C-alpha cells in the first residue's frame, strides 16, 4: 500500500471526555479524502494532529512512513514544509499585508532574492484571482478573499499534502465554487489532501473517498462510487441529514 498518510489507533481525550477511541485511516498519494462527521466529533483535532499542532494520547500518525507523534517542534519542521494547513478562518497574520503574508513562508524557508519572492507572490495572487490586493491588510479583505489568501499562502512552498479545515464554511456560492476549483487544480497537480467539511456539495465535487467519524471511530469509509450505491449505510444517512 503506497499510503502517504496513515493514522493508526488514534486516541485523544479532553479532560475526562474521550473524543477519539480508535481512529484508523489512510490516504494514498494524490488522493483527496473527505473527513465528515457531526459537530464536536473531533475532525479538526485529527487534522491538527496530522501536522503536529496536537498530540494524540495514543496511536501513530505516519507521514511517508515516519511516525510524527514523538517528534519535537524542530523535528516536525521538514514535515510542515511539505504539508500545508489551510485554517478555517484563514489565520492570516493581521500585522502583515497580503504580500507579506504570502512572502512569509518563502522568506522563512527559501533563500530567494526580493525579485524572485515578488514574482512568486504576484504569480500566486493572480492565480487565485487576488491581483491588486497585495498592499491590503487581512482586515480589509472579505471572508472569501481571506480564505483564498490563506490557501495561496499555504501552497507557496509547493506542498505534497494539503489539509483543509472547513475551506468553504461561511462562503457564498461563488466563492465556494472558486475554492472548489482551486482544490481540484491542486489535486490535478498530484497533491494529496484531506478535507474536513460539512459542505457536502464541495465534498462530492472534490473528494475521491470519504470517511465518517462517529462515536470516536471511523464508522464508515469508502470511495464516492461506493457511497452512491450504499443508500442505507450510517454515513449515507448522515449525509442525507437523517440523524
Amino acid at each position, binding site marked *: 500500500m503506497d499510503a502517504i498518510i496513515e493514522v493508526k489507533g488514534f486516541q485523544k481525550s479532553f479532560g475526562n471526555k474521550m473524543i477519539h477511541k480508535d481512529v484508523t485511516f489512510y490516504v494514498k498519494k494524490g488522493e483527496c479524502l473527505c473527513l465528515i462527521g457531526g459537530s464536536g466529533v473531533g475532525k479538526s483535532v485529527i487534522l491538527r494532529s496530522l501536522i503536529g499542532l496536537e498530540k494524540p494520547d495514543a496511536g501513530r500518525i505516519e507521514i511517508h512512513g515516519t511516525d510524527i507523534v514523538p517528534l519535537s*517542534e524542530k523535528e516536525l519542521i521538514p514535515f510542515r514544509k511539505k504539508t*500545508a*494547513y489551510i*485554517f478555517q*478562518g484563514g*489565520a492570516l*497574520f493581521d500585522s502583515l499585508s497580503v504580500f507579506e503574508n504570502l512572502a512569509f513562508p518563502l522568506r522563512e524557508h527559501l533563500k530567494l532574492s526580493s525579485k524572485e519572492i515578488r514574482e512568486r507572490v504576484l504569480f500566486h495572487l493572480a492565480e487565485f484571482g487576488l491581483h491588486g490586493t497585495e498592499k491590503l491588510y487581512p482586515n480589509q479583505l472579505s471572508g472569501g478573499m481571506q480564505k483564498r489568501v490563506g490557501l495561496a499562502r499555504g501552497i507557496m512552498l509547493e506542498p505534497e499534502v494539503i489539509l483543509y479545515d472547513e475551506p468553504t464554511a461561511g462562503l457564498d456560492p461563488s466563492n465556494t465554487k472558486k475554492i472548489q476549483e482551486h482544490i481540484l487544480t491542486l489535486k490535478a497537480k498530484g497533491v494529496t489532501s484531506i478535507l474536513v467539511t460539512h459542505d457536502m456539495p464541495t465534498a462530492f465535487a472534490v473528494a475521491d473517498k470519504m470517511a465518517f467519524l462517529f462515536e470516536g471511530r471511523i464508522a464508515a469509509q469508502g470511495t464516492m462510487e461506493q457511497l452512491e450505491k450504499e443508500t442505507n449505510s450510517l454515513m449515507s444517512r448522515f449525509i442525507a441529514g437523517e440523524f
Partner: protein
Amino acid sequence: MNFFLFFAGFTDLTIQFFRDTFKGRFYLRLLLIQIYSVGIKSAPLVILTAVSTGSVMALQFGLGLEKFGGKLYVPKLVGITVLREMGPVFTSLMFAARVGAGMASEIGSMKVTQQIDALRALGTSPIKQIVVPRVIACFIALPLLCIVANIVSNGGALLVGATELNIDSDFYFLKLTTGLDLYDFFSGFLKSFFFAFFISISSCYFGLNVKTGTQEVGIATTKAVVTSSVFVLVGDYVLTKAFWMVEKWMLS
C-alpha cells in the same frame, strides 16, 4: 496551584527564550518594530509620569522641609529618590500597564485567531517570532526609558524648585550633580533590566496561554498587568536590599 503553574510556565518560557535567542536565525526587523512599539511609543507616557512625579516630590519635600529650614536639601533628596526608586519603579509600572497589557492582548488575540498555530504550521517558531523580539526590545527600551525618566523627573523638580520654592536653578543643578554619585544611578538603573525581563516574559506567557475566546484575552491582559506590577513592587524591595548589601560590602 495557580502560582506553581505560573512559575513552571514562566521558567519554561524563559528557558525557551534563551535557547531560541542564541540559536538559528535572528529577526532584526521584528526587533526594531518592537523597540519602536514598546520604547518610542511609551516615551510620552513615561515622560508625563516622570515630570509629574519629580515636580510633586520637589513641592512636597520643599514645603515640608521649609518649616525646618531644610529647603536646600530638596535637590539631593529628590535626586536620590528619583534615581534609586521612583525613576525605575514608576517607569516600570507605567511600562507594565502599557506594554504588558498590549503584549498579552496582542499575543492572546493571535492565539484565538490561530495565527500562532499558523506560525507553527508554516514551520517557524512562535518563540523566535513572537517572544524573542518582544523580550529583547523591552530589555533595551525600559532601561533607556528609565534614563529619560530620571532626567525629566529631575528637570521637573528643578523647574518647581526654581519657580515655586525660590531655589536658585544654578544652585539646584550644582547640588544635583555634586550630591549624587554613580552608585545612586546604577542601583536604580540596574533594576530596570530585571523589571523588563519579568514584565515581558510574564506578558508573553499569559498571552500564549489564552485558549479560546475574547473573554480569555481580557483575563490574560489583566493577569499580565497585575502580575508584572506586583513583581515590580515586590521585586523592588528585594533588589533594593540586594544592592544595599552590595553597597555596604563595597564600602567596607
